[in-house]
């Protein structure tokens, strides 16, 4: 049983376990991605507490309860003070997506939406690196089409390297995938056999 099984409520030998076995590499490699992002052998570019804070924040924004609880627990076991600040940040960041602006002929399709800016007491609690990461995570989670070259500058200014920016982007983007697989499998698992 891997983490997607656990979060989707899939037990060994059930219909959904057998269904997932039709895509064995996707199943195994989704787990390998999770392991590489959350339990890396080298966390030099992004510390463990940074990884768990971003994961807890983005899983909560995506609002898939089993995933939200899983990542909240990882973070609170690693750093309860940061966990408390992230819980507050989540309440400020929650929203419906995807929204964002388009250019060119698509400008009429642009949809305005909120931009998260953490208040100073949370920015102080999280520190410059995590504050920049949480701001960037909100963008990637809810309005990724608002991305722009200049949106990366606050990360660079806060000390994020190129390696760190890639790992941060992969973590948020992988979780966008993982929670949706969990949401989909949960719906399938709740049904009877077909």
């Amino acid at each position, binding site marked *: 049983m891997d983490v997607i099984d656990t979060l989707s409520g899939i037990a060994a030998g059930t219909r959904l376990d057998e269904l997932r076995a039709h*895509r064995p590499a996707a199943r195994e*490699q989704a787990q390998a991605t999770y392991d590489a992002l959350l339990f890396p052998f080298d966390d030099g570019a992004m510390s463990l507490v940074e990884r768990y804070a971003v994961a807890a924040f983005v899983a909560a924004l995506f609002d898939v309860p089993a995933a939200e609880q899983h990542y909240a627990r990882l973070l609170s076991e690693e750093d309860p003070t940061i966990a408390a600040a992230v819980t507050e940040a989540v309440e400020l960041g929650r929203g419906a997506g995807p929204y964002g602006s388009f250019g060119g*002929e698509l400008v009429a399709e642009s949809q305005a939406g909120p931009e998260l800016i953490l208040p100073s007491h949370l920015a102080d609690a999280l520190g410059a690196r995590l504050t920049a990461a949480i701001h960037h995570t909100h963008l990637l989670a809810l309005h990724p089409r608002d*991305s722009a*070259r200049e949106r990366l500058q606050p990360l*660079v200014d806060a000390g994020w390297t190129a390696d760190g920016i890639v790992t941060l*982007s992969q973590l948020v983007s992988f979780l966008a995938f993982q929670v949706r697989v969990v*949401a989909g499998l949960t*719906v399938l698992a709740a049904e009877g056999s*077909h």
Partner: protein
Amino acid sequence: MSTLTTAAEVTPPPRFTQEALGWVPWVEPLDELDLTDRHYEGLVQRPRAKNPYFRLLARDPEVLGARTRTDLDIFCNTADGLGRAERELGAAVASRSNGCVYCASVHSAFATHFSKRGEDVQRLLDDGVGADLGDEAWNAVRDAVVALTATPVRFGAEHVAALRASGFDDTAILDVINSGAFFNWANRLMLSLGEPTLS
């Protein structure tokens, strides 16, 4: 080496298209000369070292390798389940919904290639995810992926029922979930680490 690339000349595509586009990174990719065995292991397929997007993701080679192998099984393992065209349609719908013009160009062209239904695919690009894609099956895939791409996720039993009514079995429905979910990963990387340009 600097973290961000120096701004390059780009011509942003004015609309969604099935034409081939270029993609320019904002974060500095690794230099091909600096790639080690560990990076090649992450790239999986050696020719990918020529591509700046993959050389950028190679900065975290373990994650890139696992991601690439996930991708290949979701889209290319066609022993059973959903047809290749419908998996590419799922990728294109997620990309249209999130607003990733680059991913949409690649996967709408693949959807057309495998289905020979270029006009239905073009309607998705021109009119958006509300367009009629020509039949019940494609519209059911579209509705499922749009619901899965939304935050909070809106995918529910009604989407599964509509897919079943169109003749899809459990493995095909798993493929709809996987392909739609996977592009929620891919879109965020391509949107946030660089930008498309007319080639």
